[in-house]
């Protein structure tokens, strides 16, 4: 499947910004499930400072907002050809030790709620089935309700609230999988939805399973990622895989506008 993606992020500032930075993880890389044909990130009213590949092999770019700007726009766009591998990504290419992905973070810290959930999983089955069971349990425990949680709501608090969005599903699942001894990580990316009205930015999780390597789990939709998924970045949690994060000095508020479009290209020929 060839997917055309355009991801536009617009920051509007009430006051001219004297100093601001954006950190981008907005550059998908080719792998077993996706081939990035071309990709381009444009920045309006901002200058690229550095670009590197981080320890999760994400491409990271640091951008400085043009001093005095009242608006900064980041447009990432490109074509990605995807393959369905039934969610299996395979072993890691990088040199990271597997235990790295067993470390908990502030957002994925295993509190009592996460532990309780992990304990409820059926452990007497094959690893993949344990994880599918856990995925279903997470989905059951958290209703999809936007606006309840924030980007920095930890997994345990999400379970307390019993509602959240795909990011929260992924956090809780990752946290619980680690409690069960599985290396697990958070994935941010895109999801192609027929008709295209729904949120095309998405988050899911990957778990390292003996003999298979990394395997994807979309908890929110209760399936394994297929050809409709494009992975943008991975990390121990949202903070390490967020497509854009920023800091700035200066007074006044800001508004953020995100628009993601994922369309299938040349579907007529297929």
């Amino acid at each position, binding site marked *: 499947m060839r997917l055309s993606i355009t991801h536009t992020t617009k920051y509007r500032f009430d006051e001219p910004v004297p*100093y601001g*930075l954006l*950190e981008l993880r907005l550059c998908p890389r080719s792998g077993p499930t996706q081939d990035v044909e071309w990709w381009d990130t444009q920045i309006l009213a901002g200058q690229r*400072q*550095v*670009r*590197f590949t*981080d*320890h999760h092999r994400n491409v*990271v770019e*640091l951008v*400085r907002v043009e001093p005095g700007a009242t608006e900064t726009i980041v447009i990432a766009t490109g074509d990605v050809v995807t393959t369905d591998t039934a969610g299996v990504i395979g072993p890691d290419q*990088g*040199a*990271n*030790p597997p*235990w*790295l992905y*067993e*470390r908990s973070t502030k957002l994925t810290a295993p509190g009592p709620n996460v532990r309780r959930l992990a304990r409820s999983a059926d452990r007497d089955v094959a690893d993949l089935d344990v994880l599918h069971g856990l995925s279903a349990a997470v989905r059951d425990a958290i209703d999809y309700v936007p606006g309840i949680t924030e980007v*920095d709501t930890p997994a345990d608090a999400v379970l307390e609230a019993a509602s959240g969005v795909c990011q929260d599903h992924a956090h809780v699942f990752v946290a619980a999988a680690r409690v069960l001894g599985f290396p697990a990580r958070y994935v941010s990316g895109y999801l192609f939805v027929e008709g295209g009205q729904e949120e095309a930015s998405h988050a899911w999780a990957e778990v390292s399973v003996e003999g298979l390597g990394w395997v994807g789990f979309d908890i929110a939709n209760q399936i394994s990622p297929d050809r409709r998924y494009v992975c943008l970045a991975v990390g*121990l949690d949202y*903070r390490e895989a967020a497509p854009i*994060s920023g*800091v700035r000095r200066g007074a006044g508020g800001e508004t953020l506008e995100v628009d993601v479009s994922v369309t299938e290209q040349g579907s007529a020929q297929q």
Partner: protein
Amino acid sequence: MEPREGFFDEMYGLAGNVRAPYRAYGNWFADEQPRRLLAKTAEAERVFRRTGITFNVYGDDEAEERLIPFDIVPRILGASEWATIERGVQQRVRALNAFLHDVYHRREIFKAGRIPVGLVADNAAFLPVMLGQSPPGGVYTHIVGVDIIRSDEGRFMVLEDNCRTPSGVSYMLENRETMMQMFPELFAGRRIRPVGDYPQNLRTSLEASAPPAADGPAVLAVLTPGIHNAAYFEHAFLADQMGAELVEARDLEIVDGRVAMRTTEGPLRIDVLYRRVDDDYLDPLVFRPDSVLGVPGIMDVYRVGGITIANAPGGGIADDKAIYSYVPEIIEFYTGEKPILDNVPTWRCSEPESLGYVLEHLSELVVKEVHGSGGYGMLVGPAASKRELREFRKKLQTRPANYIAQPTVALSTVPVLTRAGLAPRHVDLRPFALVAPGRVQVSPGGLTRVAMKKNSLVVNSSQGGGTKDTWVVDD
């Protein structure tokens, strides 16, 4: 002076006779009027107060500035004693740097089974962001302070390594300065090894680790959390002595892919940043997002070789208390040598046998929390109440891996001047090592910390400890 029974005294040894390194000083002291010396002590205090050599203490209402008590009787080491310490510290520091490189790259020591990987895997001091990252010049710990004590038999042992941002070196320098002003006659004609070149050595050593991006002479800066930090005086002092700019996070910004300071003439790039801000606060984009003491983006610049951060982030894994007990193994693994300086005997409560022993002898031991620092989460067995012992026993049984235990070590004593003449007080020693690519330099002597209270074993300045000038003299 009556030495304290059962403790090694630096001046009088165990036998009560003046030891060789102290002979000349002892003769001088014998001819001095105690009253003149006490007056000198008061004078020194005035000098410190006027110069503002203070540290900040956070009280209930507002930060208060306090003096660290200074004692005019020097701690004196003979050249051969010092040679052992110097070589031992160099060996240790080399090994710790090799360990850090290994931890963040191939992790051979774990594969070889010499250290359980769990000690690192779950450790907050281990920073994943440093994985695969090689600091400029390969140096992780540019400045190390090693805390050394001397046992009742007069043997030196390492109590703790400080690989993050060890402090106290300004006191080492100011103590010497003060002694030379007050007692010039003690220095005339005696070969006391100078320490005054430390700031220049620090500068040279940091410059030698400049990042690939540096062109021309390296620009250095010292990053301080600000005037309310306990060690602010030292930050300003070192910046001043090195001829480096003293900066706070708010002075810095990212310009053209480098970290730059905002100067009156516009931005000026920094090549080497000697930071006195902890890892956790260093970059709000990567570590604590609420940090206002850090520089957003600095880790990104660091990763592309745009700046040297001294000490390198993530170095704290090498001085973690859980790792400490493995340092002898670390030395042997990376240097192939036996450790020159021993550790204080340590029981790892993660090991069932050790835990059993510790629980049985709790009232005789000092128990330390492995990720804690500076006396919090600590139990001093002999001084603890029954209730405290009971509570700690429970903690140990619930999470044994969080604790190590050590015997209450007998710190040596050095005389201090009191109204009643000389009296023994317990001391430790913190020599400072500077690491440049291929070189470890140890400043002769270091900082001697002294418990000013009779029989106290606590030398920390935050708990009333004082300092002394430290001399290395020819044998």
